[in-house]
């Protein structure tokens, strides 16, 4: 087949789309296809990653859709950073699929898997595309899948959480669209690289306004304070596999979009400092809020927002070390938080509370161990992945002389440690009699893959050093980006 269909980044989007359109048809042939087809699709995009990502590390792959050179056509930019994210999303998608096989029982399953695939494909498209309107379209694909999945379960207040999400999500998309409209009216182009070269046509005051619109628009999806009111509800309402994807994928894609757009179009010191400060505020407020949560999913959601805040704070430095640290924090967060969501769901079900963990250490030792591992990794204890990611964040802040930031991050780490150790303590120290139940092997396998990732990065942090450095350089080197896209 390789000769017939040369692999290119568009396969990341085309394959899941084809599978999603096929799924209703093959479901009529046999119900078992509903579960098999998404798995095959995720395996295929993983294969695409395995082939393309090493190439992207050498030189970015730029694909022109429909054969029109930018700025006429839409192009995909598959550089080291986009490749890293696309590969991460595919891997997480596959793991969540593996987990959902046995843990997801709520009908209609065919629609669940279609939405799941599109959530991943939409986020991947956001990362790949080199056109700002196309970015908007993929953002909407991701968002509409996310709205539907939030309200997927039937009980009590799921629809309300979905409604809140759709309300604020529509605001986000309206703002982004307005920003695009303003940019188009001044520059007459939509291609990101072409826009970057034509930004001098836009007066400075207008640029600030557009930056504000994009910051609000992408900030809502990236859960930046104070735009993240929807997140705890959505995280706790959605089925746990979906919450894991929200934390691992949708937020990351929105952050990537924000970072890419900021650095290409609004590279002023003020915009970056603002992002950094917002990140810190998000970090502090979310961690403090997490301390008060009784519902475990809400606690994880707030903790997730805090972790993203940490990544944003590092990203806002926009130095090579800062972006490196932000990437590290995002990858760490995607793996660890994904594992925590899935573990908690397997352990205590969809409405897990802190009390529900009492005495779990004896009943479900493997899951408890995994939870402990995840909790330690999030806090940043050595020798787990979280330690290195936090260390790199602190180093990056130290290099730019932001000692106040370091103090804030360390202080929030103590808060983080407080509530995660409290939860871990409940597992082993508190008396309780949780219900018996066996966790299927495939779900354990999915969790084990994530746990292995945490340990691998923890013991060999050097192994991902090269990819992170390349990713950071790719994001910061705007000249290379614009030249690459507009070479002819």
């Amino acid at each position: 087949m390789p000769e017939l269909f040369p692999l290119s980044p568009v396969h990341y989007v085309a394959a899941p789309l084809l599978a999603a359109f096929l799924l209703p048809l093959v479901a009529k042939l046999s119900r078992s296809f509903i579960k098999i087809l998404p798995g095959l699709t995720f395996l295929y995009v993983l294969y695409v990653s395995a082939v393309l990502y090493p190439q992207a590390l050498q030189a970015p792959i730029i694909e022109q859709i429909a054969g029109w050179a930018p700025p006429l056509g839409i192009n995909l930019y598959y550089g080291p950073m986009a490749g890293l994210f696309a590969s991460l999303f595919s891997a997480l998608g596959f793991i969540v699929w593996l987990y959902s096989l046995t843990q997801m029982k709520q009908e209609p399953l065919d629609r669940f898997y279609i939405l799941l695939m599109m959530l991943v494909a939409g986020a991947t498209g956001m990362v790949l595309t080199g056109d700002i309107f196309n970015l908007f379209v993929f953002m909407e694909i991701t968002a509409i899948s996310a709205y539907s999945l939030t309200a997927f379960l039937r009980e009590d207040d799921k629809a309300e959480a979905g409604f809140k999400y759709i309300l604020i999500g529509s605001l986000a998309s309206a703002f982004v669209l307005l920003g695009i409209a303003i940019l188009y009216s001044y520059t007459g182009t939509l291609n990101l690289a072409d826009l970057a070269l034509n930004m001098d046509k836009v007066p400075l005051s207008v640029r600030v306004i557009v930056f504000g619109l994009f910051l609000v628009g992408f900030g809502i999806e990236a859960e930046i304070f104070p735009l993240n009111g929807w997140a705890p509800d959505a995280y706790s309402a959605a089925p746990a596999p979906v919450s894991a994807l929200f934390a691992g994928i949708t937020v990351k894609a929105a952050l990537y979009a924000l970072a890419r757009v900021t650095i290409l179009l609004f590279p002023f010191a003020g915009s970056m400092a603002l992002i950094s400060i917002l990140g810190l505020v998000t970090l502090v407020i979310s961690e403090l809020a997490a301390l008060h949560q009784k519902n475990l999913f809400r606690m994880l959601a707030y903790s997730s927002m805090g972790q993203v805040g940490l990544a944003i704070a590092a990203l806002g430095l926009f130095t090579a070390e800062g972006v490196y640290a932000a990437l590290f924090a995002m990858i760490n967060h995607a793996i660890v938080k994904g594992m925590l969501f899935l573990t908690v769901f397997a352990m205590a079900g969809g409405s897990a509370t802190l009390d529900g963990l009492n005495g779990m250490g004896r009943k479900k030792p493997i899951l408890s161990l995994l939870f402990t591992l995840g909790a330690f990794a999030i806090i940043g204890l050595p020798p787990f992945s979280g330690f290195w990611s936090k260390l790199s964040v602190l180093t990056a802040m130290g290099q730019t002389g932001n000692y106040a930031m370091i103090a804030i991050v360390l202080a929030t780490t103590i808060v983080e440690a407080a509530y995660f150790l409290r939860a871990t303590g409940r597992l082993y120290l508190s008396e309780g009699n949780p219900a018996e139940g066996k966790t299927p092997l495939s779900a354990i396998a999915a969790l084990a893959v994530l746990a292995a990732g945490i340990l691998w990065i923890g013991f060999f942090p050097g192994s991902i050093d090269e990819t992170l450095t390349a990713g950071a350089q790719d994001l910061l080197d705007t000249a290379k980006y614009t030249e690459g896209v507009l070479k002819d």
Partner: protein
Amino acid sequence: MKKLLAAFLLGFIGYYLYTAFAGVPFGENKMEVGKDYLETTVPKTGAVNTVTSIVVNYRGFDTLGEVTVLFLAATGLGAILFGMKGKPEDKHREPSSILTTGAKALFPIIVLLGAYIFIHGHLTPGGGFQGGTIIATGVLILILGIKSFHANHALLSVMESLAGITFVVAGILGLAFGKNFLENILPLGTPGQVLSAGIIPIIYIAVGFKVGAELAGVLDTLMSTTRGEE
């Protein structure tokens, strides 16, 4: 209090949006990329309607995404309303016999108009989305006019799947022929003829079927959950 706060926020947003657009001259030619599209559409894509050539060809990837969004809305709607039924005691007025007869008589004509619009999308204003929407309004008239009417969901879902697959396969064929995704692989023909513009009419017909089937399905799902029948 809340209203005051909202008004303040609106004033804030409105003022800044206004200042952003104050520098954009209205009604003047400020095209950059647009000019290139206008100049190349007939010779390079064979489509006379520039908007269509942009939607389906130059920016065809957006349209693929757009079709997906609609597909996701239909899927999500089905997932959200899964298993919900309206209450049987909901009384609805019987449609009058004028409405019933009119609906039956109009439906074929509406479908014909819709089909005309999406088949000629590359020549005249309109296209797959517009044509599909018109067809869905035909179904809406049937739903309103005939109380016992129900769309055949199995047929609709097969139709939308096949149409979606056509779109993606048309894209992949471009790759298979050694070109790019969604790149035209058919002869362009004479601009202005129905059989011209390469894959544009094929994709737009698929989009027409898809949009028609999806919107009809959405309408029927919404109707049957609120109307109390199933």
